[in-house]
């Protein structure tokens, strides 16, 4: 990719625009997934530690990859703040992805609590990346309270349904100056590519890889799709030929001089 086309999140620069989730597959596969995805950011959850288990996910993640802890498990802003502070204490930087779900059936993010948590954590120096339902007013609030990126969902999490919220994500891309990272619901490389063509700054995927027949090959397919979409966006898409557009009466016939 072009060396000068960086993804910038909170003063940190990244070359890759593919953020990898780490759920639902074995630690053994993580190294290969990161390598073939070319990812520089991987999300991790914060959970109770087990005894007698000296193997930790951290040991499988190359040192040059940025850890993006998430607040999954939080049901409100207060819990998300607590989880974020625990994550920071683990000593892997200031990044935090806010995930707050009050609803266990659809696992939709709670935008209201997400704004509150973002405000608190941004004020405490975190680089806050909120996962949200794509709503322009909420996105503007997230900008105002100090988010470093906005992560709208494309479809219900884990659904692999693709860009169900396409029009609304496009509005965020057009109106919000922070990176818009499409998260949740992206199931195929072609969908990732489409989001990138629209001008998304990056893609986050997990289930699509974890449930693929061959994880490392799918990781590499996503990588290529995301790079292709980005290139297409930068190049400027060509025209769509509209057939059957009728020539109406000239509108400018009244002009003098």
């Amino acid at each position, binding site marked *: 990719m072009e060396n000068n086309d960086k993804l910038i999140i909170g003063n940190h620069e990244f070359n890759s625009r593919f953020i990898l989730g780490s759920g639902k597959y074995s630690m053994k596969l993580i190294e290969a997934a990161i390598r073939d995805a070319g990812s520089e950011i991987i999300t991790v959850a914060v959970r109770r530690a087990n005894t007698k288990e000296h193997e930790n996910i951290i040991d499988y993640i190359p040192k040059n990859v940025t850890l993006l802890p998430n607040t999954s498990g939080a049901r409100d802003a207060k819990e998300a703040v607590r989880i974020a502070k625990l994550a920071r204490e683990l000593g892997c930087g200031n990044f935090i992805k806010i995930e707050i779900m009050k609803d266990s059936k659809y696992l939709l993010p709670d935008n209201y609590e997400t704004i509150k948590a973002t405000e608190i954590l941004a004020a405490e120096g975190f680089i806050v990346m909120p996962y949200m339902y794509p709503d*322009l007013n909420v996105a*503007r609030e997230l900008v105002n309270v100090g988010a470093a990126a906005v992560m709208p969902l494309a479809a219900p999490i884990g659904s692999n349904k693709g860009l169900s919220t396409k029009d609304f994500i496009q509005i965020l891309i*057009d*109106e919000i100056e922070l990176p818009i990272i499409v998260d949740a619901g992206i199931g195929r490389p072609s969908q990732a590519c489409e989001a990138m063509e629209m001008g998304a700054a990056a893609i986050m995927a997990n289930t699509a890889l974890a449930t693929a027949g061959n994880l490392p090959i799918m990781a590499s397919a996503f990588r290529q799709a995301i790079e292709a979409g980005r290139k297409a966006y930068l190049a*400027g898409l060509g*025209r*769509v030929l509209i057939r059957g557009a009728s020539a*109406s009466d*000239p*509108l*400018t*016939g*009244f*002009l*003098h*001089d």
Partner: protein
Amino acid sequence: MKNQFYVDSKTLPMNVLNKKHELETNPMSRSNHLEYLPDMEQIKSDIQSKVLKQVQNYNYSSYTTKNIKTALEHETCTIEDFKALLSPAAESFLEQMAQRASQETSKHFGNTIYLFTPLYIANYCENYCVYCGFNCYNDIKRMKLTYEQIEHEMKIISDSGMEEILILTGESHSKSDVKYIGTACKLAQKYFRNVGLEIYPVNVEDYKYLHECGADYVTIFQETYDSDRYEQLHLAGHKRVFLYRFEAQERALMAGMRGVGFSALLGLADFRRDALATALHVYYLQKKYPHAEFSLSCPRLRPIINNDKINPLDVGERQLCQILCAYRIFLPFVGITVSSRESASFRNGIVKIAATKISAGVSTGIGDHESKYNGKNVENFGDEQFEIADNRSFKKMYDDMTKEGLQPVLNDYLYV
């Protein structure tokens, strides 16, 4: 070709005339137009630097046919696309631009056209803006309506059927102070559903007061966004302070006004740059105040009393149409007002492409509505700011718009 703006009145005393000439010929005799006066509020805002930076780097001759085609194919018009649409290369795409603009207009406004009328309540002015009929050195009949006269004028206008009014004054803080204007707004609330203001820029506190008095829309013309040119045209008075004027809309929004209007007066400077700056002024403020309503006008220079030679130079109807189409494509959601400075035929045509608001029953003079509306002989009135080109009455305009297939709307507004 240049406009010759300076006109000496025979009635001016020698010392005043000398001062006028000094201002015109010696730039050193003028104040620094980039310095706020002591009574002017300074707000923290990055809008101005964002706009002026884009304008500075705008090289409109670099755009080609290819850029225009691309711009017209994009679903959303980027700043770069807009720059292309304003360029000379886009002139040969005027019909395509009009088709696209017309689609955008009907997407956002259907077939509605809003009608309003301006009411000038005073023409005293402390500024010397060389192109304006109200300028303090121009020998015209000055007048300020009493509250009774204001109410009388409003009644006549309201009786004609109009429901929205725009109150205007010359820029005189002493003759037309904020309290006088506020009282006019309160009176207007009795007769109209929607009250707008086009007065000198004021501080946030004063905008708050005027809002409480019933005004909800504030229009300020920047005239030109070219700071150097601005300096040469606004030689004296409060209006000379370029930045304070630039920030007026933002102060109005901070004070709680619902909507703000913008404009450059085309013909004063490089019209493409001024059109770009005007639209970007809206664009960046909209991002910062997404709840607000925005409107644009596109006036061209007109002859004034004592100087009938003033004209908009290189801004012909085709150029004006191009700018309005580009505005519409770039900012599909904004209201676009077309002034009575333009001819009836131009206005009839442009409402089908881009304009959404049109004035009718217009007088830019003071206290002469009775004579203009009812043919009654009024002896005492103040002179006009500029000559209008379309003098259709409210009734005639309403009927004409209906004939053009449009739906005239007198008001769709809620004061909360």
